[in-house]
């Protein structure tokens, strides 16, 4: 303990010894004043001995650690500096102070035991130790404080190492190469584990004898632990350390336990060769390659697609070319019909073909069914729709084709302005035919009718505005029209729209008789009304009128009144005047005889010959057979030739 070997002189050594003896014998608890005095003297002697301890920069004594092994006692250690040889170790003192209840005791007490814990230490036995009580210790050297530390005892617990390590063999592996052992130990003796005052946990470490690195195991609370897989041909060392279960700091390690395992039997298996990594890698690569090739060969096509994707062909938006290939035309059409630009030509052609065939190839079929019905039927409407309801081209083309007049009529809705131009010609033809029938019928009975009775002609325009009409035609018309009358009975079947049956060399159109116009009275049936209109009332909204009638109206006014009462059923709003109505008017001078309207033809259209006034039109009655005596029976439809005859 005392560094007797070192020292300047023998005198100094004796002084040191004396000082220490005095200090050790003093009552440290009471903190007597004697000790400081002695120490002071000692230090003075030291200073005399060593005139200049001088530069003591890094050699300052300081606490190294304070430790309690079992939570009942504790000890503190310090270093005494570099010049421990030069300085008097006894000059260093330790003082402590602890709190009691609420107050610190004002006096610092000296260390009670400098010896038990070794050199440069202070040992506090259980009587001086209080757990959960703060302590402060300070280190003084030559009276001056060198270091200070404060702590509680429960914070500095570091148990002693376990004792009594031993091991037992658990088993040996089948290969005879490895073995398991169980290591046991005892807790440190000073730790009162039995009473539960302190609870410990342990950590075991082992290694091969010639290794340098220890292998650690997890902390355990029990005092024995198995160690697995030790090689039989090696030697091991095992050591254990402990700590309090809530702390972090471990105690010291126990002494290493030497484990000498039994030798391997000579009949044991050969040393297991190291894991054949190389072979595994080779086989693994081989297997993966096989799988890859299988995969590639099975999905060749798809891989080819992946690698070389096909160039996309242009396709119409919304249309799958496969549809066209498969021939599903309906679907394609429905798709395309959505777009306005598309015109399924073939549908158009079909409807044209149908109509053409029906009319030209089969004359018998002309009379079958009413044209109006056909025209107005839904089938035709469908064909129109198929064409594209808003498609004007088909309508327009049809307007300009003279051969397909029925479709012209049908498309009259579609045709806008063009139809109006073409219509007069058609009207002329139709009306001619219609009135032809009528005239032939009336020709004979009414031949004696005075022309003057024809005065009540239908005037479709105002008298004021009418220009001198072509009167000439009126007298000749009924003459010319006579022979051209066809079967009178067939006149009853003439429709509002008449069907063209033939075209005469003269250029006029021969209409086939159709149904009578069911829409109201034909103008031809009610001439008297017309007569009445002739004088006073003009059909305002009529577009044209018979020139003969107009003439008659102008020249002869009063006689019209007598017959004005007859046939008041004339529809004043009718634009058209049929020869029928005029015929009946002429034939029934003064009589209110109603002509059988059901049989009279209704020529509704005529061609315009002369436009006299804004409200007057002179209609052409070229093909109409004029009754002999009834100049105006043809409703004033006078042909140009007849007009020329009449007029000078």
């Amino acid at each position, binding site marked *: 303990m005392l560094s007797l070997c070192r020292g300047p002189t023998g005198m100094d050594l004796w002084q040191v010894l004396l000082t220490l003896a005095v200090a050790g014998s003093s009552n440290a608890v009471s903190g007597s004043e004697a000790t400081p005095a002695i120490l002071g003297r000692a230090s003075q002697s030291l200073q005399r001995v060593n005139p200049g301890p001088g530069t003591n920069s890094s050699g300052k004594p300081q606490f190294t650690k304070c430790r309690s092994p079992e*939570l*009942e006692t504790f000890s503190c250690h310090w270093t005494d500096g570099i010049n421990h040889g030069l300085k008097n170790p006894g000059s260093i003192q330790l003082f402590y102070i602890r*709190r009691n*209840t*609420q107050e610190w005791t004002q006096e610092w007490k000296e260390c009670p035991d400098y010896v038990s814990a070794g050199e440069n230490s202070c040992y506090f036995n*259980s009587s001086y*130790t*209080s*757990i*959960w*009580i*703060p302590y*402060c210790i300070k280190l003084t050297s030559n009276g001056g404080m060198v270091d*200070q530390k*404060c702590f*509680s005892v*429960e914070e500095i617990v570091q148990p002693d190492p376990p004792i009594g390590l031993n091991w037992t063999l658990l088993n040996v592996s089948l290969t005879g190469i490895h073995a398991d052992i169980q290591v046991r130990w005892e807790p440190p003796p000073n730790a*009162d*584990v*039995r*009473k*539960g*005052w302190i*609870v410990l946990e342990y950590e075991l470490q082992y290694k091969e004898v010639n290794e340098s690195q220890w292998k650690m195991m997890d902390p355990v*609370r*029990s*005092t*024995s632990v198995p160690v697995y897989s030790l090689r039989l041909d090696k030697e091991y060392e095992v050591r254990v350390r402990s700590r309090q*279960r*809530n702390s972090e700091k471990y105690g010291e390690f126990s002494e290493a336990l030497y484990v000498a395992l039994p030798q391997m039997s000579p009949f044991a298996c050969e040393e297991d060769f190291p894991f054949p990594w190389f072979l595994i890698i080779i086989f693994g690569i081989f297997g993966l390659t096989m799988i890859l090739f299988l995969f590639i060969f099975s999905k060749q096509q798809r891989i080819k697609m992946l690698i070389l994707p096909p160039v996309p062909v242009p396709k119409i938006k919304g249309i799958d070319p496969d549809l066209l290939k498969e021939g599903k035309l309906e679907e394609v059409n429905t798709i395309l019909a959505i777009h306005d630009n598309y015109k399924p030509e073939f549908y158009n052609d079909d409807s044209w073909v149908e109509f053409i065939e029906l009319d030209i190839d089969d004359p018998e079929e002309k009379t079958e069914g009413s044209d109006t019905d056909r025209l107005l039927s839904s089938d035709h409407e469908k064909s129109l729709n198929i064409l594209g309801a808003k498609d004007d081209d088909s309508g327009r083309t049809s307007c300009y084709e003279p051969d397909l007049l029925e479709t012209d009529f049908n498309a009259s809705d579609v045709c806008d302005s063009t139809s109006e131009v073409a219509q007069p010609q058609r009207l002329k033809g139709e009306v001619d035919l219609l009135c032809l029938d009528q005239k032939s019928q009336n020709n004979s009975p009414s031949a004696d009718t005075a022309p003057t009775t024809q005065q009540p002609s239908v005037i479709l325009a105002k008298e004021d505005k009418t220009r001198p009409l072509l009167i000439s035609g009126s007298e000749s018309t009924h003459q010319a029209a006579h022979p051209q009358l066809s079967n009178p009975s067939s006149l009853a079947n003439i429709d509002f729209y008449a069907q063209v049956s033939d075209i005469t060399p003269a250029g006029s159109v021969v209409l086939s008789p159709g149904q009578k116009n069911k829409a109201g009275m034909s103008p031809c049936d009610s001439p008297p009304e017309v007569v009445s209109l002739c004088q006073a009332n003009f059909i305002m909204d009529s577009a044209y009128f018979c020139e003969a009638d107009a003439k008659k109206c102008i020249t002869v006014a009063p006689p019209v009144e007598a017959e004005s009462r007859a046939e008041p059923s004339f529809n004043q709003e009718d634009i058209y005047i049929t020869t029928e109505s005029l015929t009946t008017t002429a034939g029934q001078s003064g009589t209110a005889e109603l002509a059988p309207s059901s049989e009279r033809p209704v020529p509704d259209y005529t061609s315009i010959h002369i436009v006299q006034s804004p409200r007057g039109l002179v209609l052409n009655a070229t093909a109409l057979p004029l009754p002999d005596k009834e100049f105006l029976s043809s409703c004033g439809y006078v042909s140009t030739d007849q007009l020329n005859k009449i007029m000078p």
Partner: protein
Amino acid sequence: MDDKGWSLKGSLLPLLLLVSDLLLCQGVTSLPICPTGAVNCQVSLRDLFDRAVILSHYIHNLSSEMFNEFDKKYAQGRGFITKAINSCHTSSLSTPEDKEQAQQIHHEDLLNLILRVLRSWNDPLYHLVSEVRRMQEAPDSMLSRAIEIEEQNRRLLEGMEKIVGQVHPGVRENEVYSIWSGLPSLQMADEDSRLFAFYNLLHCLRRDSHKIDNYLKLLKCRIVYDSNC
């Protein structure tokens, strides 16, 4: 067994029993503790103590971690340690300070002491949580630990009351505990003073949790295993 709120660490129970058996336990002799002397009482008391020890151990762990974290983060270089050996508010309770004193005290008194300490910490823990939450610079782990400690402390208190009810049924002492008055210092505007107050509180918490843990382990060995753990 009625364990309201004692759902913590049920899986540790068999392990702890095993450990206790391995720790030189020679078996349980008949205890004078249980009045009925029935086996059920002994077993249930063992379970109660096991759970109590687990809880107290857990609380002490959390307190240590919390204190270490705070110390590392805020107290370095501030010299708190030298000033900080202030008294804890529970110092007024005369608890045994070493092993001899702990062995001499009767277990009922010791149980009551434990209860007193636990009760004394109800209020400070509650305020600790709220103040840590308000402290912006506090890390989230500190707050979570504070919340956990407060909850476990409440559970431990319930468990202890149950143990007391089983060990000494019918005896009910007045609720004695020491009052904590450190809230104003926790809310001080001065940062240094405020941090010092926190440091002090956490230091006291660590110490008291260790104390309770120790007492309970001692009691468990004494009561359940007859001082032969």
